[in-house]
């Protein structure tokens, strides 16, 4: 605040003050402007641009453990792509990544939106519950995967115990031992993890729906369902779009929870593109093939880019001070 009162007095002083050659000053000013951006520029180059470009280069190279020490390896044409994509494990990982993403987003949206509607009602526990719902967000994703591995274990597992106590099942199920169940468990884990994100964003959107509009619709005879579909949903649509795009971006790159929960097993039944690319590179040391599959993942993730940028178009324009 002291800074704010100071400057006003000096406005006249400055007009009479010494003048530095304007051209020199503007060049200096431009240099200062750019100086603020230098660390970020260097970082983006080193941590994003170079790895991405190098990954694409690698995907066209004939790599081997011997070439790790060199930056270049013999040109391989498309062979990394053909080898990788002919592999049934990679194919099913790609299909699985799609189904996993679609199912995750649908379930996260349905549960998240229901919870957002719930918290939008007035009830005593509301504030307390709303702050606690964030908790799954706090956990490192690998820890989440590990916790669910513990909950879903065959012997003395909590989930089996609950279902047996409720007489829903009679024999414990080996969730992480059968391919189908392992996929379902992975899906449940990811939904659990993502619901808070959907709930929080959709809840804040619901808060912005004008109460008068809902009241007017009610007076006009609209029931709760009609008010939801004809008033609320159209108003919060922009937020729904943002949530789905962000959710897509998060879900296609899911890695930690798979490693923590199943490591891609049993029999590669829970491999996603990201985990299989990791296997190719860091378990089989096929850097070229890993890079080829990573490029596929990159292309899939970038499908969201135009949409994401369009949703942020206001940010791009940005008003200046």
């Amino acid at each position, binding site marked *: 605040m002291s800074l704010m009162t100071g*400057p006003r007095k*000096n406005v006249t002083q400055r007009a009479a003050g010494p003048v530095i050659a304007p051209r020199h000053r503007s060049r200096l000013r431009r240099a*200062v*402007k*750019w100086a603020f*951006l230098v*660390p*970020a520029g260097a*970082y*983006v180059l080193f*941590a*994003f641009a170079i*790895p*991405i470009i190098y*990954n694409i280069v*690698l995907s066209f190279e004939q790599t081997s453990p011997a070439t*790790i*020490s060199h930056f270049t390896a013999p040109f391989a044409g498309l062979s990394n792509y053909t080898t990788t994509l002919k592999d049934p494990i990679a194919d099913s990982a790609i299909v699985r990544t799609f189904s996993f993403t679609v199912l995750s987003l649908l379930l996260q949206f349905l549960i998240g939106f229901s*919870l957002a509607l*719930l918290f939008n*009602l007035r*009830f*005593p526990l509301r504030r307390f519950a709303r702050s*606690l*719902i964030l*908790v799954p967000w*706090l*956990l*490192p*994703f*690998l*820890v989440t995967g*590990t*916790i*669910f591995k*513990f909950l879903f274990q065959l012997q*003395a597992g*909590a989930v*089996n*115990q609950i279902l047996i106590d409720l007489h829903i099942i009679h024999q414990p199920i080996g969730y992480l031992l059968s391919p189908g169940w392992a996929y379902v468990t992975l899906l449940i884990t990811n939904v659990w993890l993502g*619901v808070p994100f959907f709930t929080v964003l959709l809840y804040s959107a619901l808060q912005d729906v004008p109460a008068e509009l809902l009241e007017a619709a009610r007076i006009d005879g609209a029931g709760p369902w009609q008010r939801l579909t004809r008033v609320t949903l159209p108003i919060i649509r922009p937020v729904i779009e943002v949530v789905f795009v962000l959710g897509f971006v998060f879900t296609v790159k899911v*890695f930690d929870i798979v490693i*923590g929960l199943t490591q891609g097993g049993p029999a590669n039944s829970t491999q996603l593109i*990201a985990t299989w*690319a*990791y296997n190719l*590179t*860091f378990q089989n040391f096929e850097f070229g093939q*890993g890079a080829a599959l990573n*490029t596929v993942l990159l292309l899939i*993730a*970038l499908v969201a*880019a135009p949409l*994401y*940028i369009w949703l942020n178009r206001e*940010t791009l324009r*940005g*008003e*200046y*001070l």
Partner: protein
Amino acid sequence: MRPKTRRRLVAAAASIAALVALVFLLFPLYAVLVASFETNSQLFGASTYSFFPSVWTLSNYSTVLSQQGGHVVSSLIIAVGTTVLTLAIAVPAAHALARYRFRVTALLVGSLLIAQILPSIVIANSMFLVYHRLHLLNSYTGLIIADASYAVPFGILVLRAFMLGLPGDVIAAARVDGASEWQAFARVVLPMSRSAIITVALFAFLNGWGDFIFALTLLNGNTFEPVTLSIYTYLGEFSQNWGQAMALAVFAVLPAAMLLIAAQRYIAAGLTVGSVKG
């Protein structure tokens, strides 16, 4: 009278529904906490799962503290380093992108949005080879640089949105008063952006703390490892030693949880002010 009883019924039903939802969301954490106080024979040798064990033990914690204390310290170094690096990069960049008119502003902001989308495993794959050549594998420096990739684009975008909302005449007045561009940034913009900076710092800390991909790919475990990696290797080596693994998981969750509870005020402040542009 009628609408009132109806409202009460709705409130009661909503409370019950919220309670059920919370049980689903919080039970896993309860299970972790309980398991961390149980012996392995209770957890794995038993044929049934007990929701509230009759015998509690601290042995998991004493084992984990003596064996894994160093990993907690490593995680702290990584998280603090990630926070410092993120702020050092993001704060000045956000200031420049908010205050000055660059011909390339839209391009730069657009590439930051794309950087947020890039999957970490794609970066880790080729970063491993680059680091191998630069001798950055198994180093805090290398891992911190990689871990900052989560928060740098987010940080620049959030801080820029916040700074666009700052009153421009205050900065202009400081300049008129004779402050240099740098002084105007350090003495006016920085203090006014405090809440947004804390938000970004928290985000960066949690990302550095929770990172697993880069620790898994850029470290071989012989020099140091963060808690996330040690939970993973721990379960790999002693595959059913759940009690100790869960005690370690409590350590992995605790600092992040404490930080978020202590600083919740700043997060709320930072996010609200950030979204309401001046």
